[in-house]
């Protein structure tokens, strides 16, 4: 340890640091300035960027001792005297902040860049930000914020700033729905003062690290912890036997052990957990734990697990047959054989996609402690409610002795949507030691935890007539689930059932299998279960359109389902803007003049997609509503909105406030949202299946309407006026003739007189939907979103490299409650789709993940992200809150195949493998060349 003297944000710190300690750790843990984030620990993501002596530095790979005596500025030091820096204002105003985890690094990087380059071009901005990973925004709004900041600084004579806080900028109080606005917590996030799970510094906490399996499939013969236990500072070592109760997000897949008990099922599975006074001690102790394994036969591929495994040991003994198949789903509607006979063009193709990871920037972190109220767990989770249940089950305590608190979350995309081993382990050790226990995963551990998109293999048959009408679709799909169940049963169904729209299909059949393999488990990820099969079908539609010489847009237009119709599997389609969506992008991209008309190597492609707006059926069968919202109003007139919904950066807290404010005719500043604390907030099932706007939004609307009724009743009685004559608008309650004309506060005074604070509730319960056959419940939703994308690409025929030049996208979200947030979700979805289609893959060698960090797992940088042209289609859904439906996931589906179809248009090759690697493109180009030559010879 050595003392250093540094100035951070003009405050002097004399700190003892370890000789090789990184600056990020000193800033976060010793100075307590947790705005500086750690996303990758290896200088690959930029979240840790700070200014040292006015120059930006990646603090996670910079030894603190290098900068003894330096002046450091962190994100907390950018605003002055409570006023945001202009760049911060721009980030807020432009919607450049979603989860906010990359924001501190982005702001510091951009600030330094514009200081040195006052007149940057858009390309220069992209270049400057290319070392800062953002997984939420697709960079578009960040780039806009930086560009506008630079312009305003340049045109300087800075206008006098308004004294109003920025979040109220959309001035109108005549309704809050449909007004683009930043998230309510954006000013907090942009200053680095919003707390994420790893930012909680609990006094006297122990730190947990894990010993992980080095075998993919092995029996654990012995674990010797004696040497580790003897290390000074080690307080507790947990092994699997202490946590015998298995868990999993689905009641049917409670197949996971928090710590491997008898055997390990993937390389990296936790076999022991050490709690110690510091992370370093815990980590060192983990290396001293001796584990004896007896390796078993490993199953690493779909084929190995799908077939009979002979005398080898199954991954899970619960598999029904002598293989590692976890789940089989099969549904058949109409008559596929007849459909195949009827179709004039039939195409049968194989596709293969590798697995991908959510790549959220905030690594998992949790803190657990026990007190007179039982267990409290603060954790980065999308599903507090399911986590609550899993903790009660595994800790063997009543549900009433568990509290789950969700802090700000640095992105999820499905990856924080299960109860996790590390959460159960810290809860357990906290109980055993009587101390708070903290854990944070490294980026490698985040990859091992995975729960990402399943690797998929499939064979699809699609038949159509020469007039372009689709006659049959038959899909055989196998997905690779990895070591445990997770959401896999749902994924298995979704790969089939989510093919039944947006096109009319009379003859649809599918058979899907999910297999266990000895790799990190797969689960739900944005666009859950439908992305890969959608890619295949949209590619094949493109191919058939080409064969029958029909414009792919026209062919799709002929097949779309109508609004207010039913799919072949009895999904109830209500609002449906698919036609507007495809027409919008076709027009905007000048499709008619571009597709099929560009020179060799340059092409345009189109595709469509749809998705559920929340699953109509809950995971646990019970009679609870899917969402409940509580409102409380007291003497101060502020409406407290309590919801169990998890804002993970998608803006759901803001959405709730918008809806309540709209119903009550009040401004946003008269609302306050408290969310996802399972002690205080009522049950909401969480942020998955794109359900929150529809379900929690409807519950909030119901609650606000109930509160409105209470106010109407009270005012009506007091003022002797029929309730129906009262109007709620612009922070007033009044009648048309103004015989009653109350300010909001006066109305609340009447409401609370002789009664005190008023609490009301609202709820959402999905209507009964769907058929009564087995599997009819999969993919049922009260509403569906629809989307379309057109992409433009250039293909380098010598290298096979593909460059995306433009993406035009349109998404029917019913109604954009907050257009700024909707655009952000769409742009983020398209960016994520570009990642899967172009560069992202979970690449394995003998069950070991080769690319377990942000250098080797290739999320597109700002430079790799093309201009994205965003269109919101509004269809006003009859059951959505103010007509709104989902926007967080559905947009992703269309973008992947639109890119592959553009490549077909450019060079005539059909992509059947993801990601699209330049070497595969080159191979296909050569094959095509060869075929051309052979056919020439034959002629």
């Amino acid at each position: 340890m050595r003392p250093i003297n540094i100035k951070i944000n003009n405050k002097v710190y004399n700190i003892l640091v370890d000789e090789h300690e990184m600056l990020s750790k000193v800033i976060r843990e010793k100075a307590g300035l947790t705005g500086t984030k750690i996303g990758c620990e290896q200088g690959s993501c930029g979240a840790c960027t700070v200014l040292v002596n006015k120059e930006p530095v990646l603090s996670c790979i910079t030894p603190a001792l290098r900068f003894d005596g330096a002046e450091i500025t962190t994100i907390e030091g950018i605003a002055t005297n409570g006023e945001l820096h202009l760049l911060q204002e721009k980030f807020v105003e432009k919607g450049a902040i979603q989860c906010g985890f990359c924001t501190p690094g982005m702001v510091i990087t951009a600030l330094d860049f514009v200081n040195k380059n006052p007149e940057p071009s858009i390309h220069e901005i992209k270049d400057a930000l290319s070392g800062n990973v953002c997984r939420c925004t697709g960079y578009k709004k960040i780039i806009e914020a930086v560009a506008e900041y630079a312009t305003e600084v340049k045109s300087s004579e800075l206008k006098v700033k308004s004294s109003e806080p920025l979040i109220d900028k959309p001035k109108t109080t005549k309704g809050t729905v449909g007004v683009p606005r930043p998230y309510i917590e954006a000013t907090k996030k942009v200053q680095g003062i919003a707390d994420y799970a790893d930012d909680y510094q609990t006094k006297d906490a122990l730190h947990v690290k894990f010993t992980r399996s080095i075998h993919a499939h092995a029996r654990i013969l012995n674990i010797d912890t004696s040497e580790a236990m003897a290390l000074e500072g080690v307080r507790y070592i947990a092994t699997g036997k202490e946590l015998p109760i298995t868990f999993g997000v689905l009641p049917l897949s409670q197949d996971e052990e928090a710590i491997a008990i008898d055997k390990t099922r993937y390389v990296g599975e936790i076999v022991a957990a050490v709690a110690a006074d510091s992370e370093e001690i815990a980590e060192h102790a983990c290396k001293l734990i001796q584990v004896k394994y007896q390796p078993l036969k490993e199953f690493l591929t779909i084929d190995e697990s799908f077939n009979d495994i002979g005398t080898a040991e199954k991954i899970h003994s619960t598999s029904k047959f002598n293989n590692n198949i976890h789940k089989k789903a099969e549904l058949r509607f109409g008559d596929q054989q007849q459909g195949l006979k009827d179709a004039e063009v039939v195409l049968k193709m194989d596709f293969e996609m590798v697995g991908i990871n959510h790549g959220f920037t905030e690594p998992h972190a949790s803190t657990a402690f026990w007190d007179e109220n039982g267990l409290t767990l603060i954790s980065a989770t999308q599903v507090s409610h399911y986590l609550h249940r899993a903790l009660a089950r595994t800790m063997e305590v009543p549900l009433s002795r568990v509290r789950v608190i969700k802090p700000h979350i640095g992105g999820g995309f499905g990856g924080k949507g299960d109860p996790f081993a590390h959460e159960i382990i810290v809860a357990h050790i906290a109980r055993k030691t009587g101390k708070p226990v903290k854990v944070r995963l490294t980026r490698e551990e985040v990859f091992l935890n995975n729960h990402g998109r399943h690797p998929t293999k499939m064979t699809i048959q699609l038949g159509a007539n020469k007039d372009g009408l689709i006659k049959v679709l038959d899909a055989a799909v196998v997905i690779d689930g990895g070591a445990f169940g997770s959401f896999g049963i749902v994924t298995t169904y979704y790969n089939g059932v989510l093919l039944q729209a947006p096109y009319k299909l009379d003859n649809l059949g599918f058979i899907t299998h999910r297999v266990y393999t000895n790799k990190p488990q797969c689960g739900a990820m944005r666009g859950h279960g439908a992305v890969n099969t959608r890619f295949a079908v949209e590619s094949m539609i493109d191919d058939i359109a080409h064969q029958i010489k029909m414009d792919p847009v026209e062919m799709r237009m002929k097949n779309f389902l109508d609004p207010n119709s039913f799919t072949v599997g009895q999904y109830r389609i209500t609002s449906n803007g698919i036609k507007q969506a495809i027409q919008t992008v076709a027009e905007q991209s000048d499709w008619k003049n571009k597709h099929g008309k560009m020179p060799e190597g340059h092409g345009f492609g189109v595709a469509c997609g749809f998705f559920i707006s929340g699953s109509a059926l809950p995971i646990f069968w019970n009679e609870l509503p899917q969402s409940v919202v509580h409102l409380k109003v007291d003497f101060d007139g502020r409406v407290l909105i309590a919801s169990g919904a998890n804002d993970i950066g998608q803006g759901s807290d803001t959405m709730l406030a918008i809806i309540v404010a709209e119903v009550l005719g009040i401004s946003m500043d008269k609302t306050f949202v408290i969310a996802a604390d399972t002690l205080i907030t009522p049950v909401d099932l969480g942020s998955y299946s794109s359900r929150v706007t529809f379900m929690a939004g409807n519950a909030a609307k119901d609650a606000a309407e109930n509160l409105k009724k209470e106010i109407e009743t009270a005012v009506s009685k007091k003022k002797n006026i029929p309730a129906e004559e009262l109007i709620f608008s612009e922070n007033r309650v009044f009648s048309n003739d103004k015989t009653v004309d109350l300010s909001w506060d006066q109305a609340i005074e009447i409401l609370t007189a002789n009664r005190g604070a008023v609490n009301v509730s609202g709820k959402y319960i999905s209507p009964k939907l769907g058929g009564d056959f087995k599997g009819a419940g999969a993919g049922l939703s009260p509403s569906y979103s629809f989307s379309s994308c057109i992409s433009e690409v250039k293909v380098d025929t010598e290298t096979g490299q593909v460059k995306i030049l433009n993406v035009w996208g349109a998404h029917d979200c019913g109604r954009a409650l907050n257009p700024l947030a909707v655009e952000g979700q769409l742009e983020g979805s398209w960016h994520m789709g570009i990642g899967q289609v172009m560069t992202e893959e979970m690449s394995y060698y003998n069950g070991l993940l080769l690319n377990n960090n942000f250098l080797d797992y290739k999320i597109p940088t700002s430079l790799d992200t093309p201009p994205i042209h965003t269109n919101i289609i509004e269809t006003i859904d009859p059951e959505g809150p103010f007509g709104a439906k989902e926007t967080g996931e559905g947009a992703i589906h269309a973008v992947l195949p639109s890119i592959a179809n553009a490549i077909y248009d450019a060079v005539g090759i059909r992509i059947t493998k993801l990601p699209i690697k330049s070497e595969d493109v080159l191979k296909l180009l050569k094959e095509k060349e060869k075929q051309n030559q052979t056919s020439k010879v034959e002629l």
Partner: protein
Amino acid sequence: MIAEKIYLKPKSVDEAIKTALQHQASFRYLAGGTDVIVNKYQGNEEANCLIDITGIDELKTVTSDGEYLKIGALICLDDFKKHELISKTFPALINVAHEVASPMLRKTATIGGNVLCENRCSFYNQTERWREAVGYCLKCEGKTCIATGGKKSCFSRFVSDTAPVLISMDAQIEIADKDGIKTLPLESIYTGNGISPRNLSKIAIIKNIILPINRNFKCDFRKLRPREAVDFTSLTTAIAIDNNGKVKIVVGGVDPKPIIIEGTSADDKNELIKKAVKKARIVDNDVYSREYRKEMITVFLNRSFKVLR
């Protein structure tokens, strides 16, 4: 107990070398640290003593005597463009520096560090636990090469982007060692052995990179990588032609050392390219396949020749 760690920050090259000699058992020089610290994080770098040389001002100058340009080893990649001496005479250096890693890393990473960048391999640049699980490779004291499925030599990839461009223009390096100062052709420090890819003594410090000014090099380089930023190279090619028609081709990213082919502008360029391809010992230890990278050598070099013609 956990081993004691030391961090030292000498002010001069002499002091640095003395300090290194005192901690000879387990030390590592640290310049920008963008390579060393990540390797340390992953457990591939275990020195107890880090000698931070970034406080040595004598390594931060860019000078010219009219014949040679001397670039101090601690000049950051991002700072190349600030030096007119570099941008006027060697614009290719500005361009190649910009293609290294990401903007933020370039603000810290130095030219000296970049030419000494540790070789990489998919099976080596992994955490301790990972390497234990795979069964340590040759480069981390294991018995066989995993990338090749059991060969007895290491084919970790030489990944400096700046070195191929520098070598193509006959760069030399000035090195301070315990016996004094010497100047060597840059290419001579690369051994071709993936386990210990450079022949410099551990004590040695690069002082300057030296480039001949008056040969009017025309230089073109290419880099293969999946993304337009951040990524290490999968293939870097450079060709420089000087005013006497000397042609020097350098290929990085495909072999434990830079591949060098020399010729003249009168030579058949296809023959030169063939030689380069033949010399590259490419194995499957990268995100791109062996075959593809091999094929791209020809494509890239042809494109550069086209530009330089």
